[in-house]
């Protein structure tokens, strides 16, 4: 029989809050984590704002040993391990003495250890390959974050890293869910992380997809669904969830945040309007539709949507797609919000950080505000009533939440979370 899958632990490292309670406080208050970074300006970036979590040396040492931190230069692995360990402990689970063959991880990343790789390349080009030291591989291999986490916790089931651009985090959740549902694991630590800084963000700046209009007003820069949206703001960090079979969670009397009802990942094949960088709308709708079928919910049962909504011209298209697939017009359309207004676009970390925010909403009975959206985009206003995009914190009992992410390569992911009921 297929297993039911619940969420028993959460962890997050975000630009507007490091740790679950700081993050929840920030999202309820509509607090931005976007800042101006002088080094981006010095490097000649058009967009000199972004979101990076602030982590003290002292805090790092609560997660990593001195030896692990020696020559450590991977921001993504740092954030991922912090969020992952937090989620594990939040679930009330122990660090294993022996390998736990029933627990694994799917922890995604877009790149790994870009700073470390840069340092290694300089040494290599200087003909000093023998001077690289022992940690270049561990910090720069794509699966670095899952390898670190697997060792820190003692995971003995599947330990892997997925990568699907900005869909990565949402995909990781679905991959872990599938594994537990199939009975191949009891617990899966799922999530994703992103490196940050100039070497990750430069490529996006070069594509002119980042906003260059808010270098003097960083907190106003990330404007999903706004008429004055002018491109996204790059972010970073990590989000992590402990997924667990309902049986296992009940047996150890764990706190249950919510249930993962189902999900779907697909691709538009870069056909029908889909390209390397733009989504095929038909595929987006198909992905959401199949996620709903998989979860066994109808459009009318969805109380709120946490969108991908990055603050580009594609926001209106996304709303159109949701509307088409849910079959809900006007007032019947659910509430919708975008965390990116506060933390920017966390790239490979986006789906997991946003899912943590979504689950906190379900558990806490609220919908966090969309900031920087006082001037709603006209095309969106023509599709759905203005009050479906809350500008202030709303107290609202929500049962079913749909979360979607879309990424370069024309890839999509949609997951359906439900408030846990016995």
């Amino acid at each position, binding site marked *: 029989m297929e297993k039911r899958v619940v969420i028993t632990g959460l962890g997050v490292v975000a630009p507007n809050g490091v740790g679950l309670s700081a993050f929840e406080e920030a999202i309820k208050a509509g607090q931005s984590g976007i800042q101006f970074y002088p080094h981006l300006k010095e490097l000649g970036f058009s967009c000199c704002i972004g979101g990076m979590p602030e982590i003290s040396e002292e805090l790092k040492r609560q997660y990593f040993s*001195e*030896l692990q931190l*020696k*020559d450590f230069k991977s921001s993504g692995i740092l954030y991922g391990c912090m969020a992952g360990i937090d989620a594990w402990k939040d679930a009330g689970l122990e660090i294993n003495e022996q390998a736990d063959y029933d627990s694994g991880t799917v922890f995604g990343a877009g790149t790994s250890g870009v700073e470390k790789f840069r340092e290694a390349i300089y040494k290599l080009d200087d003909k000093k390959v023998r*001077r690289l*030291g*022992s*940690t270049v591989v561990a910090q720069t291999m794509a699966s670095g974050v899952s390898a670190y986490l697997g060792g820190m916790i003692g995971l003995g089931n599947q330990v892997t890293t997925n990568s699907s651009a900005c869909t990565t985090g949402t995909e990781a959740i679905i991959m872990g869910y599938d594994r537990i549902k199939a009975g191949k694991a009891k617990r899966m630590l799922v999530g994703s992380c992103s490196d940050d800084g100039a070497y990750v963000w430069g490529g996006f700046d070069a594509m002119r997809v980042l906003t260059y209009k808010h270098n003097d007003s960083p907190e106003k820069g990330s404007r999903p669904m706004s008429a004055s949206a002018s491109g996204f703001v790059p972010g970073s960090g990590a989000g992590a969830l402990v997924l667990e079979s309902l049986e296992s969670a009940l047996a150890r009397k764990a706190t249950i945040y919510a249930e993962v009802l189902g999900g779907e990942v697909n691709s538009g094949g870069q056909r029908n309007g889909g390209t390397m960088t733009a989504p095929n709308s038909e595929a987006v709708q198909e992905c959401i539709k199949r996620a709903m079928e998989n979860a066994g919910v109808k459009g009318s049962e969805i109380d709120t949507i946490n969108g991908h909504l990055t603050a580009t011209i594609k926001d209106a298209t996304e709303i159109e797609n949701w509307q088409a697939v849910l079959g809900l017009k006007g007032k019947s359309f659910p509430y919708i919000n975008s965390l990116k207004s506060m933390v920017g676009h966390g790239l490979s970390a986006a789906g997991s950080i946003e899912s943590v925010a979504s689950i906190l909403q379900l558990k806490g009975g609220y919908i966090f505000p969309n900031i920087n959206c006082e001037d709603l985009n006209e095309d969106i206003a023509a599709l759905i009533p203005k009050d479906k995009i809350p500008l202030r914190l709303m107290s609202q009992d929500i049962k079913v939440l749909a979360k979607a992410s879309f990424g370069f390569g024309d890839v999509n992911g949609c997951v359906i979370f439900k408030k846990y009921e016995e």
Partner: protein
Amino acid sequence: MSEKETLIKELREIIKPYVQNQEAFKKLSEETHFITDLEINSANLVDIVLDTEDKYDIEIDNESMDKMSDVKSAMGVIQDKIAAKG
């Protein structure tokens, strides 16, 4: 302090960050083995070699590195390389 004692003292400082067994480290002698006694991760032997090179401004070739499995052999390699430097 004899030259040998100084060298052991300096070597202690170099290997300290990589040691996993602190009890064995306290009792460090010439016979102490890096992996079996100090439980140093074998990957970190490379880092110990690099730190040693920096400390004495010497270059330790791959063959010499293979010999550096305990305190005594490491001291031997260091002394040889310093002597070769003239």
